[in-house]
């Protein structure tokens, strides 16, 4: 009984602090952030089962249950995983780039960007597109993992303007 009541109080305090937090608006630049307040942030952690390559766990988080379709969410994470795998792919092209860079004493990267950087730009565009089409209309925003050191995919859930957090 005790742990349960403890958790209940924790939740009460959390939602209480969130309510009082609403009074101080965040000064952000995206329209949605200016109008809505952050209800919570959820994190998709890394999946290390294939080694040190950048992959994220395709696990549906309970906080997103009534916000977004499970298939859609898993599709987003799966696409991100594929893009990161493409960035880190070891093959003829990456070897060629590596050798060329070594021969030119890495000065070639003053002119052109690495394959990894090109794919990171692709990922940023994909996330932007997903946010615009799917997540922002549902009151959520995905933060590019590169801004979190490729540790997590951070999904910020915003409160509905009509009140009541998405729980």
């Amino acid at each position, binding site marked *: 009984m*005790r*742990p349960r*009541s*403890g958790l*209940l*109080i*924790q939740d*009460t*305090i*959390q*939602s*209480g*602090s*969130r*309510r*009082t*937090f609403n*009074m*101080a608006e*965040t*000064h*952000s*630049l995206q329209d949605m*952030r200016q109008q809505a307040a952050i209800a919570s*942030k*959820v*994190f998709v952690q*890394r999946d*290390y*089962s*294939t*080694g*040190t390559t950048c992959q994220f766990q395709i696990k549906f988080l309970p906080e997103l249950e009534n916000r977004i379709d499970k298939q859609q969410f898993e599709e987003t994470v799966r696409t991100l995983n594929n893009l990161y795998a493409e*960035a*880190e*792919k*070891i093959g003829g092209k*990456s*070897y060629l*780039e*590596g*050798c060329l860079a*070594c021969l030119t*004493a*890495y000065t070639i990267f003053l002119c052109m960007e*690495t*394959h*990894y*950087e090109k794919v*990171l730009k692709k990922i940023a565009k994909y996330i932007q597109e997903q946010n615009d089409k799917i997540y922002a209309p549902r009151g959520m925003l995905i933060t590019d993992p*590169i801004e*979190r*050191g*490729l*540790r*997590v995919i*951070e999904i910020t859930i915003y409160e509905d303007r009509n009140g009541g957090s998405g729980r």
Partner: protein
Amino acid sequence: MLPGGGGPMKDCQYSHISTRSSSPMESAHKNNAPRRKWEVFPGRNTFLCNGRIIMARQTGVFYFTLVLIVVTSGLFFAFDCPYLAVHITPAVPVIGGILFFFVMGTLLRTSFSDPGVLPRATAHEAADLERQIDVSNGSSSGGYRPPPRTKEVTINGQSVKLKYCFTCKIFRPPRASHCSLCDNCVERFDHHCPWVGNCVGKRNYRFFYMFILSLSFLTIFIFAFVIAHVIHRSHQTGFLNALKDSPARYPFHWTWHNIHCSVICFFSVWSIVGLSGFHTYLISSNQTTNEDIKGAWSTKRGKENYNPYSHGNIVTNCCVALCGPVPPSLIDRRGFIQPDAPQSVAPSNGITMYGATQSHSNMCDQDQCIQSTKFVLQAAATPLLQTEPHLASNELPLPGKIPLSAPCAPLTLGQPTPPSSTPNLSCDTTLSDMLPAREEQGGPHFLTPEEVPSPRGVLSSGSSLTHSHTMHVFNLASQDSLHEDSVRGLVKLSSV
């Protein structure tokens, strides 16, 4: 994303609080100039050229390395090359020159680049991880010592333990390690090299390897041709004369130069060639120095033990290590600090925890609330008598933290300090009030032990603030029914 978001911030009641240990008054003035992320980097690194160059803090040995290489090579080019170019072949100084530039290039590249530093977790991430850890541990298992924070992961069939880093507040990825000298977690951490003045990790390992390989070629080259020079001369004039001779065009005694070059090269050859050989072995088996020293993948640990990261054959391992893709730096040192961006948790200074931005200071307070509540709940869960007096003192400051996000005006404490700093001051003290209590009980460490001394300085001045603060707070709490519920709940807990 505009870098200079200082304008609208001034209208708010919270002023921009710098994460550096400058006073809050100063930071309001700094608001106008957008600052780069390297300026507030929490690790122990030196940044040069406006963030383009990153090195460890102690760079003395690196300069020694530079001087040693430059002086030895310089002497070689000045004294031996003219003779050798004429009497043996002019290719000698050319090859020597190429080797020298390659060595210098790779050395500077190793020393100045980011080894693969992992940025520290933001406050939200850290709080989320803490929650997950507590859920998995179960709140009933809060004894004196919590179980060590590790996560088991199976990589290619091999079981690997991921450790939790208390400084960076993350679960370290496999093969990452925390460098105590630089105070950073580094990906694929090899070792911290004082000769190079930097950590050697994922991003600069290939440069380090090429540096020691080319340096071993250079030292062998210089050693060989100094000897060749002496021998060639001795054929003409006799051995001892060759050593003693001081041709007119050399400014000082030639013998010392020969001895100097020979001695340095002799010792360097053995140590550097040995090191190159060792790293060649590491690359071919895809291990790090760290793993090799600990014997992580050695068969002595068990017959089933094997390296899950190895690609199977030597050629692939070498190609991947030397020619594989280089990931970009994760720390973005030259980026501008966004006004609404969350700052990472910096445990070294108690004051810095309270965020650089107004929104984040709210987030931080919210998380402090959650964590401090957790401490109370855990304390309540342990059936020991000694927790009760702690709890009695603990639960009082807590409600004070909840309405902090409310306007500061009602919380004036008659102190001649700016309103924005006051709640932080009392927050600081309330947290540090609880820290000694938590440490005695051996509860989960929210902050590393190093932080405990720093808030204590504030403790004595702030303790009186805390108590008067809570009186005000109780008045506020009664106005808000939600807060009243939480306060009631806490009181109930403590009485159990």
